[in-house]
């Protein structure tokens, strides 16, 4: 008897899940959007190069007109910088206001003379701070370039020859030697789309069932809330899982040529766990939203901070500690952690079991809370 019950339960879960999938396949627009978010969107996310400095506009006010100032100017090269434009002192404010240049370098008169005399002259760099990361990261680059040129120039001009620096540093960027932002941008976009899709597919389909009365009908049939919820979770997770496997193998690995170091199957296992957590989150939101517009806003309110603060856009360790603590509750944080570890650093199970476990616990808690609320909201 117990066994038969169990089989019937599994059968209900299976049948209801198949129903969800049929519904998905009958909606051509949804399919088109899913295809879009796992192909073109990832491509755009990868190539829009949101992270590193590319094509930054530079202007130089050269009051020295010396060979060193010429050298400095010539050292700003694509793809990181556009070829610098020479402007006059009085133009600085206007150009900055109009946002024409992110960086304006002012080389003072007698710069070369003071440099060679070892006086350590100053050179001014104006940065348009409203340009966010291009400004902050790029300023570092500009500084490096200028100092390197000055050092070399001084060394060549003085008797010290090559030996101006007592030691050199060789920087090796592990896991992404050339710091190609497309690697990260592509994976980040994949993570964002998995999250968004999983929440929308489960949560909104639950609300739709509620608004159309089909959920209420299920409540008088020998089907439990547990079965209904699990059926939505497995079916929508499966759809997203297949889409993300496709995106990883075809778009990211093959089309964009991003080398994926770690184990594909380990990553898929992680995605599965993550999908359990976010589909539960979708149901959780739906259980608290009264109608579709409310669901839409609630979803944005939860989704955006999850994405922005997951550590995917800016590093977690730089956020205020309370934010870091709170973000430990978000599944996306752990997803970002393990996907970077697996895909870029080639980490194995012994490394990622911690985020895996956390994801499972988060998913389970959300699932249980939703289950408790499910019946109450279903029949309204």
């Amino acid at each position, binding site marked *: 008897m117990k066994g038969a019950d169990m089989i019937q339960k599994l059968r209900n879960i299976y049948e209801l899940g198949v129903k969800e999938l049929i519904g998905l396949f009958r909606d051509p627009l949804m399919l088109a959007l899913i295809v879009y978010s796992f192909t073109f969107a990832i491509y755009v996310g990868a190539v829009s190069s949101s992270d590193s400095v590319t094509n930054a506009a530079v202007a130089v006010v050269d009051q020295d007109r010396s060979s060193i100032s010429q050298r400095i100017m010539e050292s700003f090269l694509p793809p990181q910088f556009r070829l610098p434009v020479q402007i006059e002192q009085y133009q600085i404010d206007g150009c900055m206001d109009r946002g024409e240049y992110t960086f304006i370098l002012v080389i003072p008169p007698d710069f070369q003379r003071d440099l060679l005399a070892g006086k350590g002259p100053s050179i001014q760099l104006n940065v348009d701070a409203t340009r966010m990361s291009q400004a902050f990261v790029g300023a*570092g680059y500009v500084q490096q370039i200028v100092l390197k040129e000055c050092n070399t120039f001084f060394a060549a001009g003085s008797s010290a020859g090559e030996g101006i620096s007592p030691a050199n540093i060789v920087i090796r960027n592990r896991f992404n030697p050339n710091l190609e932002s497309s690697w990260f941008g592509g994976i980040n976009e994949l993570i964002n789309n998995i999250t968004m899709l999983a929440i929308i597919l489960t949560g909104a389909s639950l609300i739709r069932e509620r608004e159309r009365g089909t959920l209420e009908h299920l409540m008088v049939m020998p089907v439990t809330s547990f079965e209904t919820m699990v059926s939505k979770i497995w079916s929508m997770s499966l759809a997203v899982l297949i889409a993300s496997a496709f995106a990883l193998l075809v778009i990211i690995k093959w089309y964009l040529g991003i080398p994926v170091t770690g184990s594909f199957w380990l990553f898929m296992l992680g995605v599965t766990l993550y999908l359990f957590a976010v589909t539960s989150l979708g149901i959780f939101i739906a259980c608290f939203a009264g109608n579709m517009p409310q669901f839409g806003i609630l979803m944005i309110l939860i989704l955006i901070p999850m994405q922005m603060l997951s550590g995917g856009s*800016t590093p977690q360790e730089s956020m205020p500690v309370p934010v870091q603590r709170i973000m430990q509750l978000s599944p996306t944080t752990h997803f970002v952690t393990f996907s970077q570890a697996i895909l870029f650093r080639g980490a194995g199970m012994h490394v990622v079991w911690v985020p895996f476990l956390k994801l499972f616990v988060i998913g389970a808690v959300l699932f249980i809370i939703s289950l408790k609320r499910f019946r109450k909201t279903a029949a309204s």
Partner: protein
Amino acid sequence: MRRSEPETSGISPDSGGFAVRFSGLRLSYGKTLALNGISLDIPAGRLVGLIGPDGVGKSSLLSLVTGVHAMQEGSLTVLGGDMRSAAHRAALCPRIAYMPQGLGKNLYFTLTVEENLQFFGRLFGHGPAERRRRIDHLTKSTGLYPFLDRPAGKLSGGMKQKLGLCCSLIHDPDLLVLDEPTTGVDPLARRQFWDLIDSIRKDQPTLSVMVATAYMDEAQRFDWLIAMDEGKILDTGSPKELLDKTGSDNLDSAFIRLLPESKRAHHRELTVPPLPPEADNDISIEAEGLTRKFGSFTAVDHVSFRIRRGEIFGFLGSNGCGKTTTMRMLTGLLPATEGTASLFGVPIDGNSMEVRKKLGYMTQLFSLYNELTVRQNLELYAKLYGIPEHEVHDHVEEMLTRFDLRSSEKTVPADLPLGIKQRLSLAAAVIHHPQILILDEPTSGVDPVARDGFWELIIELSRRDKVTIFITTHFMNEAERCDRISLMHAGRSLACDTPAGLVESRKAATLEEAFIGCLEDAAAASSAAAQKKGENESPETAAEEVKPETKPHSSFHMPAWFRENCDFGRWYTCFWREMLELKRDGVRGTLALFGALILMVVMGYGITMDVENLPMAILDEDQSETSLDYSWNFAASRYFDERKPVRQYDELDQRMVNGELSLVVQIPPKFGRDIQQNNVPELAIWIDGAMPSRASTINGYIQAVHAQWVSEYLKKQPDLPSYEIPDLETRYRYNPDVLSLPAMVPAVIPILLMMIPAILAALSVVREKELGSIINLYATPLSRLEFLLGKQTPYIILAFFSSILLILMAVFLFDVPVKGSLPLLLLSLALYCVLSTGFGMIASSVTKSQIAVIFLTMVATILPATQLCGLINPVSSQGGAARVIGMFYPTTYMLLISRGVFNKALGFSDLMKPLLFMAAEIPVTVAIGILLQKKQEQ
């Protein structure tokens, strides 16, 4: 009917004596042929009935006549104009009233009865006094008057139907088209309804009425009948002519005889065998003092009954008397406020799977899956009820045959007419051969043949399989087949007896008379009480004295197309209605307003451009004084957070792979000695490149720290020429202290104002599509422009209000002052809100489901706004498609203005270009939204 007698009174001259003429009219949905080349002329001023089985094209014909559905083949002239002409359709809208099929499809459920009626009244341009007069008159004649303040969604099914009627009657149409208007309406209200139609026709003899109905007793009073079958017209004539032709004494049987032989082959007169007496003590359903209150309103008031096993128990009553609520309590969906109920002697518990397995339930509103075909639905339900896999097929086949669903087994319910959907619901409710069947108006909207077929099954289930049946119905011939009936009114059970017993006790001739008598008595009692309460209100007669006004028109002369498409009143009506809905759903408005604030706090505080506290470790293979000095330089930097030193390369590898360290400084052996010997040793520095932007930042820090060390070292060397590193003064303009907030805040505002308003605006339209009220765009004089702008405006206001809150928060909470021109900022934000909601409108025009539109709007706003519009990187730094999107996306320009005003202290003269660009995008956005939105069903 084509050769009908010329005597037609009061025909408007332009119609040529005919209200509707069509020939060769064909309509198909995909492969399904709904109308098969029919031709007919329908004279004006008549009450014309369409009768026929479910799904023979009645509704299709009506939706063509009203211009709701786009035409395919054939010609159709309505009120003297060609329905292919968009201009004629537009001119016709105010002259036609259309009530679609389905319970309250044209209504707005969060709005009250009064507000729904006001909406339609305003749409047709009536003044306030005129609206009051009409609303009072209509609601009093239909018994809705006491419920003016109730939200339409809280009305019972039948009351929704009545309200739908009132809404379509609020203006004076020349052609009234009603698609099964009285489905689910109680007999008393039906009588009142037809009296109302009669009185309207008396006042306005030119009025033509077309009605599709499943009630043959109603058809009896029509002037003309059109009998249809399979997309063709079987016969036309007055009811009497049809009776004579078929030689039957009532229309029910006349209707059946008109059908082709194959369709009526299975039909036979039904008889109900008596219930065996031994069932007397075998109680299946028992209720004792069952009560349900919603706030102060008592929906069900101490109802008690005992239903024997195998009994057919009918629940009759006026609309809104608590029948559905009682059923919901019996199924365990709704907990009872008071009293008890039990099934098979077991108290009702919503969670008992055993009871649920024995129960079949059919809801009043269709509640099966629209995304599955008929067969898939049946299979799903069979499996969910635990029917073994190998028997599923047989059960499904049995149901397909029994309910004559075979021809539509591969269709999705959304494309099926009401009657067939009802049959499908029934089939799903009995597919597992339940022991108790709870059926909420199962036969409403079903044609007579199918109804009899259904009752045949009911009787068989009850008598042969001892299934207990609890049923509500408004058909008296069905009520007569019940073993016992309970008459309900206003939550209380008035009487409970056998049909014959009821007729006898009221000394009535028929059950209908007994029923109506009962209801009238009860209604009189309650309205007497209501009358007392409402005596101060202006009596109806006073209201009627208000002179009906002529429709107001703008006094200045606009071109005709402009007047037709841009009526201020109709725009305002749409706007007013949407505002009301927003007001009702307080949670939505609050979330929309304050959600943006919450997000701004999160992003403002959470996102920093600074990279600090990076976990770093040293791998010192030298351990000399110089190497210690070098590592100390790194450890002291505020950017780095030194962790336990790394001992060997393997450990370095492992600690970097698991993400513990972002940076390792590897000092080679003999480092100190090499320096002294001018060998220029190389230090290896390992950075975690998984996150490129962070790695680049780290890179910069390392260079700086190293340069610092070099300079310190050189100073200590006496034999080298004195060298001072040039000092690079970096001035971060507009944000000298490199604070995150002043950088983030102006950037976040445009992003938040893109996503939330777009989603809300998009949902507001698609919601109407999904819930059905979009029909008001198709069937009323509303133009797409009025409709879209009317719906968009509340969200523009909401978004703009939200942007003001965001500015206030920026200034007072985050201390990010508005340095530049505030009027410019406000103006540009206003334009921007129009654009973002306009994007929502475009998204709504290409989607049908709410899920899809949420998804589409998210996809179309988040990625471009956050990545392509210069939030992080300037648009000019991007390449390819990303750059093109960025150049046209309004967020790019809003970001320029927002940063210009907040950070750069700029004004109009500096930011004219982006402002003009946004202004220029508005008409384009609105035009695209309108062009993509359809004014007719396709």
